[in-house]
């Protein structure tokens, strides 16, 4: 009991002091009108939240963020799982391949976005050059003029950066599966697909839930990629960009806090859905 307290106390102190306390302060503030440009801070109840629900710009940013979440979670999970399975199978040079796989994460976010900006550049970009060369398009395309394409490309930059995290988590999960289980499945006549479904998937379920949740959360928090590639453009503006514009550019702090709390609740809710689902579907007794 005392030992448990020693082990857990640092967590309680750090998380309590640096996360829960500030969160509580912001939550309380979101029910007041906190605006440094106005003299006092009256209690306004849910007025900040109510205004957010009806604001069409905010609605547009929610739509964009949900699109990012869908693109990012699907692509990161499939790509990350593929990369992890590959890394798990490779015998020679695995450490190099892993280092190469995590490289995208190491490029500072600003440089990352700028590199992709170059690639997407309509006049001098690599993307147009390659597609023209392959004969897939007839003339240079301005990629960000079309909302669906713009959302996809912003997601792609995000996925490029975040996929390594999913791959590392899933690789760790794969590594903890004892080899005997595969041999047993093989003896039972299971092919690769069947043994993946019966052995691998249930045993990495925990890791998968973690990977899915972190993909969701990071996609909900997408900011840099959209901001650097397309500024405040309504086609790509994410909820967190909207938070930034509201709280820091317009200095309506409590309104921004309210929106960021809604974003938090949104990402928690989405994560919860599949954490529960993953745990339920893969439970085996």
């Amino acid at each position: 009991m005392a030992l448990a307290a020693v082990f857990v106390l640092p967590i309680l102190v750090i998380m309590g002091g640096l996360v829960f306390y500030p969160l509580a302060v912001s939550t309380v503030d979101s029910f007041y009108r906190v605006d440094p440009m106005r003299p006092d801070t009256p209690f306004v109840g849910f007025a900040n939240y109510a205004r957010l629900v009806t604001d069409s710009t905010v609605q547009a940013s929610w739509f964009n963020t949900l699109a990012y979440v869908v693109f990012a979670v699907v692509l990161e999970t499939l790509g990350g799982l593929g990369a992890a399975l590959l890394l798990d199978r490779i015998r020679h040079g695995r450490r190099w391949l892993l280092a190469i796989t995590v490289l995208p994460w190491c490029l500072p976010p600003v440089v990352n976005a700028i590199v992709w900006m170059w690639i997407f550049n309509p006049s001098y970009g690599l993307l147009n050059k390659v597609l023209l060369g392959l004969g897939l398009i007839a003339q240079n395309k301005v990629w960000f003029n079309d909302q669906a394409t713009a959302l996809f490309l912003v997601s792609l930059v995000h996925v490029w950066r975040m996929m390594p995290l999913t791959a590392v988590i899933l690789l760790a999960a794969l590594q903890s599966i004892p080899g005997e289980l595969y041999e047993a499945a093989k003896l039972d006549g299971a092919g690769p697909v069947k043994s993946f479904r019966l052995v691998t998937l249930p045993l990495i379920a925990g890791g998968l839930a973690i990977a899915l949740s972190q993909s969701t959360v990071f996609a909900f928090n997408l900011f840099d990629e959209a901001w650097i590639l397309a500024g405040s453009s309504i086609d790509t503006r994410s909820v967190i960009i909207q938070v930034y514009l509201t709280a820091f550019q317009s200095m309506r702090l409590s309104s921004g806090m309210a929106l960021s709390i809604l974003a938090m609740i949104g990402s928690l809710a989405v994560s919860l859905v599949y954490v529960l689902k993953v745990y339920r579907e893969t439970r085996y007794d």
Partner: protein
Amino acid sequence: MKRRLFLAAAMVMPLALSLSGAAQAADNLSVLLPPWGTLPKDMTDKFAAERGVALDAQTLGWDDILTKIVTSSVAGTAPADATELDWSWIGRFGAAKWYVPLEDKIDPKIIADIPTASIFQYDGHLIGVTYSNDFRVLIYNKAHLAKANVAAAPKTPDELIATAKAVKAAKIAEFPIGLPLSATEGTSTAWYLLTKVFGGDLFDKDFKPLFIDPNSPGYKALNFEITALKDGLIDPAATGLKDVDVQELFKAGKITFDVAGWAGNMALYSDASKSQVANDVAAALMPSTIGKARTLGLPEAVGIPVKAANPKAAAAFIAWLLKPENEIVLYDQLGDMPARLSVLKQLNDSGKLKDGNVLLAQAALVEPLFTQGAPSWYPDFSTAVATIINQAAKDQISVDKAVTAIAKAAADAQAN
């Protein structure tokens, strides 16, 4: 077990305290400026020697500096003893009372020498002193014009279009006119500038929009941009270009006109190590439909936060920054146009100012965007303007719809 707990706590506490104590010594001055305010080391050393104050210069990227200032000011602290103050922040920071009045701290004779000082007035008080005097001027590639057999720089918007068409027809530049149309601030300011070019203003004195009527200058300005885009005079890729991207295109000789050119950029464009058009670049007065070449001033200033730890040294720093020799170093090293008219003249006389006579003539015609001072709702409005123009440029909405949407955004911003 208890001992262990105690040990853990005992280890963390002094560590936390010891590493944090090093901060403020007796006469320290912290200054927070964007990259173009990164003072050369010789300068800061000289300041430290002259005043006996250790200068701690902090630099932050442009988008980030605002986040930093808002966060620390809201938390009731000073972001630094002296900070950047953009013209567009005045309404907000003035209303929030975050910066101290400076009129009694700086020599009035110097203030009188700074034409843009009025932009930094809030409620009758001067809360910032200009250090970078950004104003807009028409920058063009005279070699392109010569090849297209055009003798002189355009004086009206129509001439600008005609020249651009001639350049395009002669296959000298595919898209001669450089204007940003992405959803970024540079797009908004370009439209504000063009509104002045067409001889008008955005708002009347009660902040009622003046740009909805199809015959209004604001409407014509937006229509000018969209038509030029559709006629192939502006690169369709401009919907993704920021102002700095347009400048890169100009430096590479891909475009003929940097329409919303920054006066300070003349130094850069004429620098052969950074620009391919160093010998061809020229400046001209802004085109105009009314004869007078109106232009926008978008200056940046230094201000002192109310909670500054060392306001005295900060005031001394600002006064020192305005010395002619220091303003000249800022221009030479960082491309910041001098704030003081006398220094600008001095620079021109010494032949350091490329097309200096044009710049001086244009500098005399600089106007603020809002004669009333930037209102507190400016950022909401300006972000909406950039977003809406971007949509119009992407052909998602018409010019008619765009100006209506901008007017609505202005009303919403003012209501909030």
